[in-house]
């Protein structure tokens, strides 16, 4: 008899962080103060155990030549012929992401035990980290779009709550609201794609939509809905990976503590978008519109993000734009069909960026050490490409970079402010006979929706 079957391994891996989250939350709600030592030990044991489990899973898959493991847990709920499929899947795309998640969350957890020692939000951070790990594992092992969106949303909400981690300052909270807004708008695309998948193709399961083993899977999506669905999924991926029209949120997310920046915006969360486009790659190959859209988004974001990255003055913002640039390149790779390169790029980028984020607080110290080691003669680097363009263009690009591509200003001026003005005018002028309340002054803007300084 096998010690742990494939099914048991996958279920254990996904459920463990969720169970730890629930256990810690209930204990706290019942009055447990959330002692640092206990939290640290629970975290260490959890991720060491999970690393062993994922290693066992990988070993079993490799040794038995299994490329795909599916765990069918039936329907979460069902009614009148419609069911919410609860199936998990580990294949050559999701296994690296699962392993990456467990190892990096474990590392960041270990780092945070010291980094957040005696911080008032210590317990909250770990609680959210476990929930985040659960969301990520659910996202990467989801056997259907329906379950993917559950993980996707959990990752989103934990991300927002960690951006507002330093809740006693106003800026993180304002930025968290802005990020949450961006997420929600982008998530509409994913939700719509899920419901349309059911409506048009009768299922949201990967096995039905993309039969076969990744990366040699095909797709069963045909007809006029194909392009529409592919475009929706590309936009959803853009939202999670801060690309194209949704590129403004990533630097705002840097308000969170450094370990969360590392794990969310350097390592896993931002790569969820890349995972999604990799997963739907067979569909993209059949839909030129979606493929070219992905390429266009990748190219424009790469150019703009690298410009801003080069003019950013603080370490974390600079790293955020650098991440964005690499994600754009991954998007381009996927649009070209280079899936193996894209997944290698994803894994490599996540590891390097996590290390960079975790070193960011001691960057000045590192620089001084390097400076001293070089005998006080550190040469300038990174100006090779700038020298190729004329000086006037350089200046223009420089100011564009400093203005962060005017992204926030454009979104505020063209979208947010007109909507707010309209909402206020409607609230003032509505002649609803049931609500004759005197309104607040028309110029007053909710503080949380004011533009980012």
């Amino acid at each position, binding site marked *: 008899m096998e010690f742990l079957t494939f099914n048991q391994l996958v279920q254990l891996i996904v459920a463990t962080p969720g169970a730890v989250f629930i256990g810690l939350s209930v204990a706290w*709600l019942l009055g447990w103060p959330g002692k640092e030592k206990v939290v640290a030990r629970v975290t260490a044991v959890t991720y060491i155990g999970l690393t062993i489990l994922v290693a066992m899973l990988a070993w079993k898959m490799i040794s038995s030549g299994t490329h795909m493991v599916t765990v069918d847990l039936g329907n*979460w*709920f*069902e*009614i*009148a012929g*419609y069911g*919410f499929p609860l199936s998990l899947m580990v294949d050559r795309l999701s296994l690296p992401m699962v392993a990456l998640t467990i190892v990096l969350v474990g590392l960041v957890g270990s780092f945070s035990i010291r980094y957040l020692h005696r911080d008032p939000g210590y317990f909250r951070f770990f609680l959210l980290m476990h929930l985040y790990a659960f969301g990520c594992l659910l996202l990467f092992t989801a056997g259907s779009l*329906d379950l993917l*969106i*559950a*993980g996707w*949303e*959990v990752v989103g*909400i934990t991300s*927002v709550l960690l951006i*507002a981690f330093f*809740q*006693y*300052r*106003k800026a993180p*909270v304002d930025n*968290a*609201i802005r990020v*949450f*807004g961006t997420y*929600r*708008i982008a*998530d*509409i695309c994913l*939700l*719509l794609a899920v*419901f*349309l998948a*059911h*409506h048009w193709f009768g299922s949201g399961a990967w096995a039905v939509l993309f039969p076969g083993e990744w990366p040699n899977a095909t797709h069963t999506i045909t007809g006029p809905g194909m392009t529409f669905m592919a475009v929706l999924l590309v936009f959803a991926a853009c939202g999670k990976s801060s690309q194209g029209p949704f590129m403004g949120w990533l630097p705002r997310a840097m308000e969170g503590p450094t370990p969360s920046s590392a794990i969310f915006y350097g390592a896993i969360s931002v790569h969820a978008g890349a995972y999604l486009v990799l997963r739907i790659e067979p569909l993209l190959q059949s839909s030129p519109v979606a493929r070219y859209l992905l390429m266009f988004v990748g190219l424009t974001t790469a150019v703009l993000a690298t410009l801003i990255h080069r003019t950013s003055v603080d370490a974390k913002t600079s790293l955020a734009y650098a991440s964005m640039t690499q994600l754009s390149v991954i998007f381009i790779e996927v649009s070209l069909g280079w899936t193996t390169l894209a997944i290698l790029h994803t894994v490599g980028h996540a590891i390097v960026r996590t290390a960079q984020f975790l070193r960011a607080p001691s960057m000045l110290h590192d620089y001084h050490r390097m400076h001293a080691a070089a005998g006080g003669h550190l040469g300038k680097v990174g100006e090779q490409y700038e020298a190729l363009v004329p000086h006037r263009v350089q200046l223009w690009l420089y100011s564009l970079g400093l203005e962060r591509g005017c992204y926030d200003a454009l979104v505020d001026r063209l979208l947010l402010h007109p*909507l*707010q*003005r*309209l*909402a*206020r005018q*409607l*609230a003032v002028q*509505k*002649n*609803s*006979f*049931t*609500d*004759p*309340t005197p309104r*607040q002054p028309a110029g*007053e803007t*909710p*503080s*949380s*929706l004011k533009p980012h300084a």
Partner: protein
Amino acid sequence: MPEATSLLSFPWISASALAALAGAIGIWRCTDPDRARRSAALVLAGVVALLLAAMLEQSRAVDSARMAEPWGGLFEVDAVNGFPMLLYVLLALVTVLVAPRRDASGPFMGGVLGIIAASLLVYAGRSLALIVIGWWLTALPFALNGFAGSRHLRHHRSLLLVHALAGGALTAAALMIGPRAPDFDHASTVAMVLVVIAVALRKGIFPAHGWLARTFEGGSPLAGALFFNGHLGALILLRAESTHLAATVQTALHYLNWGALFTAVFTAFLMLGETKPRRMLGLLCVSQAAFILAGLCSAQEAGIAGALLLWVVVAVASTALVATYRAVEARFTGVEDGIAMLGLAARTPRMAVFFLVSGLALVGLPGTLGYCAEDLLYHGALESEPLLGVVLLLATALNAIHLFRLFSHLFLGRLAAEVPEMPDALPRERWPLTLCVVLVVAGGLMPHRLVQLREAAAKQVAEKLGLEHGEH
């Protein structure tokens, strides 16, 4: 009266309504807040036990058939009304327990019991006359100034005006239809319009979307939330078969559908310019509750089941949200100013958790019952009317943003200097709110039982209204 297949062994519902009514009259004049709270809680616990007995008996009936009461047969219980009725009384119990001391007056507690007694007539009445009487009586505690106090009475005028108009429309519809199911003639067309008006007004459908926000602005928002969470407008549609309104309702659903959709989006959009927490809470409840009507109108069993589940979510989550808000407000009155961030999570972290979890359930976060409900609802909506699903998605997204804004205003940011020392959730607050949170979270993680429970009701509604085959 429509035929019921069997009789209950005891008039459980009459006993419940009488107990609530007697409690309301007895407690109204009570001057000791603690005694009033204790007495109201005891009466409500008794009503819960009686209704539970009725529901259990009905659930054991063959095919979950409708069961009428013996001795006069004024009331009936079936798959549609049994669970919501019990839930509503439980929410009233939560309201009574969580209400801060300043609200726990005799008239407040008596008023809560009065609303329950009147609502039971609407939930379970076997005749249209009984339902109309119950409908009118639900606002009596507001008219008798039980909840607001003279200082805030003007805020309840909107509720009373809307209620009077809705009651008038329903009464006129009942008079036109009479005791028999009508053929589709002029009288039934007018009756249909009147039913649409009554339901739209009561559910806060545009242009009557502002009354709840207005009611929330003055006095205790708990009473307004309880009044709204009866969802009597939706209930009238669901009980159409029992009230000879079936033919009328089938046509009415079509018009209400678009009204509900517009309301969901419009109120969500209005909140963009809103800063007052109480008004935001009111608009949020109206917007999310409009989804219930949209789901009922989806004409699909999955959509109807989604709407019935969402009913549970909206009722539980909005009660918990409003109760948490009121509890925090009772500790620090500065929360009414909606501009600054107050940072109250530093003082009341558990309250912050209750608020966030129930709010996220209300807007359908995965892992909560709200997600299951919305998933079913969107599925049904897309099957019947794809545009409906798209619009609902937009409204949910906006509502989630507003919820987070509200949470930030109350609980995040630097702790305001004027915030006094205050206790976190007291035991009498903690346990009822934990119960609400557990219901929406456990119900979301293991929704099978609840979905099954509402599936029977959805089937019954779809069959009785002839929706499944597009007969409307």
